[in-house]
């Protein structure tokens, strides 16, 4: 088509409401709303304040991991190590607040640092040594888990200070603290992704790495940043989980990375990188949380919950592949 007619076509597309395109863009939101509507009709307890807070508290861990995963996946990478990094951060933190040995803030900083360092290692190996992210983070998944077991001697670390339990179990203005933390992290991450240079570079690297290099983008730094950020958020999630279950569990977080990746994909971010939105990831996180909660309320066995989650992911990927084919 000529340029003129391409333009005409494009603007025609913009003017008229296109239900297919709308569905592709906001289908996930509609799915969530329909699900909420259905559940509130079926189960009287679903739409109560307590249950909503319960859902939000449950999804906050996955929410943090999924935000990190969004950054990584936008650069066309993947981070499989977050579940293990979360456990490592958890036992490090727990060991420091055990019996009030150190003040909470020192333990928390140590937990965050643990996550950050492991993430940095992922990033450096991926960026400087050109090893495939899948392999690097798979290795880290195993190494961090091993490290966790060595550090904790394979045993839970109980007896945390009372004040520390507030981060996972407490509430602020009636809303659970983890939910507040997720909200703050979401806002900061959105700012980073949409309003800063580094955020723009994240999209550029995932969209076309070769072009980004030639355009003068420091691609290595961008990659190191996203894996470090993912590690840091995994560390934070580890601290909150430890606080919530009131002990450092070395086996915590197993297969959490898959839920995080699932949320990102359901939220419409392309595994090929360069395309996706943080709010989509949040909707993905909520959708998974609501499905799990709803099926719980309906007394459906957790075995079935896995099947339903699998189907939702499959549908989301199907929609995404349609989207890429269109473009």
């Amino acid at each position: 088509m000529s340029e003129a007619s391409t333009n005409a076509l494009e603007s025609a597309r913009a003017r008229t409401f296109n239900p297919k395109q709308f569905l592709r863009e906001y289908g996930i939101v509609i799915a969530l709303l329909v699900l909420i509507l259905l559940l509130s009709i079926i189960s009287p307890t679903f739409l109560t304040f307590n249950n909503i807070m319960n859902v939000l508290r449950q999804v906050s861990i996955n929410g943090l991991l999924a935000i990190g995963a969004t950054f990584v996946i936008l650069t066309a990478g993947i981070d499989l190590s977050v579940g293990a990094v979360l456990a490592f951060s958890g036992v490090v933190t727990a060991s420091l607040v055990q019996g009030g040995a150190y003040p909470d803030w020192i333990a928390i900083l140590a937990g965050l640092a643990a996550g950050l360092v492991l993430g940095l290692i992922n990033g450096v190996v991926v960026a400087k040594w050109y090893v495939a992210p899948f392999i690097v983070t798979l290795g880290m998944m195993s190494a961090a888990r091993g490290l966790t077991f060595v550090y904790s001697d394979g045993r839970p670390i109980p007896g945390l200070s009372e004040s520390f339990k507030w981060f996972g179990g407490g509430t602020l203005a009636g809303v659970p603290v983890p939910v507040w933390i997720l909200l703050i992290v979401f806002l900061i991450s959105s700012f980073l992704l949409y309003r800063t240079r580094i955020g723009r570079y994240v999209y550029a690297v995932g969209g076309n790495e070769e072009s980004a290099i030639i355009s003068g983008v420091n691609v290595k730094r961008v990659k190191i940043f996203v894996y470090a950020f993912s590690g840091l958020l995994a560390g934070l999630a580890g601290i909150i989980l430890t606080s919530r279950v009131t002990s450092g569990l070395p086996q915590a977080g197993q297969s959490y990375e898959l839920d995080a990746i699932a949320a990102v994909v359901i939220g419409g971010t392309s595994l090929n990188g360069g395309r996706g939105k943080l709010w989509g990831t949040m909707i993905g996180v909520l959708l998974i949380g609501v499905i799990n909660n709803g099926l719980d309320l309906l007394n459906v066995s957790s075995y079935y919950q896995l099947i339903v989650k699998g189907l939702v992911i499959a549908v989301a990927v199907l929609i995404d592949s349609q989207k890429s084919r269109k473009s």
Partner: protein
Amino acid sequence: MEYLLEMKSISKSFSGTYALQNVSLRLRPGSVLALMGENGAGKSTLMKILSGIHRPDEGEILIKGQRVAINSPRDSLKLGISMIHQELTPIDEMTIAENIFLGREPTRMGVVWYGEMYRKTRELLREMGISLDPKTKMKDLKVSDIQLVEIAKAVSYNSDIIIMDEPTSAITDREVHQLFRVIRDLKAKGKGIIYISHKMDEIFEISDDIMVLRDGQFIDSKPASETNNKELITMMVGRELKDIFPSNKPVPGEVVLEVRGLTKDKWFRDIHFQLRKGEILGFAGLMGSGRTEVMEALFGIVPFDSGEILLDGKPVRFRKPAEAIASGLAFITEDRKVQGLNLLASVKHNITISSLKKVSTRTGILQFRQENKEAEQYVQLLRVKARNKDQLVQYLSGGNQQKVVIAKWLMTNPRILIMDEPTRGIDIGAKTEIYKLMNDLAHQGYSIIMISSELPEVIGMSHRIVVFHNRTVAGVLNQDEASQEKIMELATGQHLVRS
């Protein structure tokens, strides 16, 4: 049977916009029909209808006088139509023979009969004068060889009608002659060829009839002998083009860039040249002669072994593109889709990606208002035709995509622009605009290195022309002494034979 193929009053619209309106086409057996028109004139849509990818809304198709329905690419092949696509789609890990016989491998007792496949392929390649081993993997071939294999594949279907969509965009002159010989053979066998190309001299050399489309409409059809370059351009563009190449060239100033003895083992050796302020320096040569590699080394994309680069008389060596950019260099790369653009991002984001520091605070926070203003300025300056600057670049035409790449680089405030095949695959209207822009930039004191395989373009645009042969500089010609013959003599190494 007068016509091999007739397409009558074909119309096709996408979402209410006409891509083709009442277009008719006739192809005689044993002839070459050149299909011309700017990018987006409807050539591709028409050919996609013929090859079964799109179905027409109206109109009919007759093959050898019989009305036919083409509902799928398979139908098209069965009816004796094969197409060489512009975008090459080789399966890298497979051999030449496996690619040619993909989906129709000769079998013996249900098992692929490799002996037969390789024998047939060898025969086919020999017939076409292509000296390649059928067992070579596609990934080991040069782009030009891949193109030849695709052509061989189309020929191997033994179709009556062969559509060639810009078959020469990636091959050298020698291979073009090879291709033309094949086309003449096919003609002699009574086949009909539809030939799409932007290259005028080729069109006049090979075609019998020329048909022009513009904005989805049939403009005219004439025997090639009854028309000329100028008339065709006027028909395609719809307006008189005074002159494609600007005539008021600036006078070059002092030397800004000098390259001395640049060498990278196996890639290029002993490269010397000087670039002056306000100069357009053309780089001619065959594909694979090392021109692009020299620029990549200069720009810090790949390292080089020895030699010197002097910027304003001072030695420099860029270890990565960011350093070259900071020193005022810009590299408008050869393949905009692979290296130039992020197709998933908007016009605006593509334009500003190399200059985000200009539109953000020192801490890295983007100033959207400023970014919008700057991006808008470049959209206006280059007259990028887009719905708005938030439109994704993948929806723009080739010419407009190229303008976006140029805009990106101009925003970095460069002094030296390296343009690698700046007008490849874009229509003549956009080409003219880009030529004018290049000339304007030279007047403003920008220095431009232009790599181009289109000789009229190199001669028309450059002050001086550096000709490459066999990975080194074969000679430098001034514009007034340059001719296509002289350039080709240097580029093919004939000057060495004679002396």
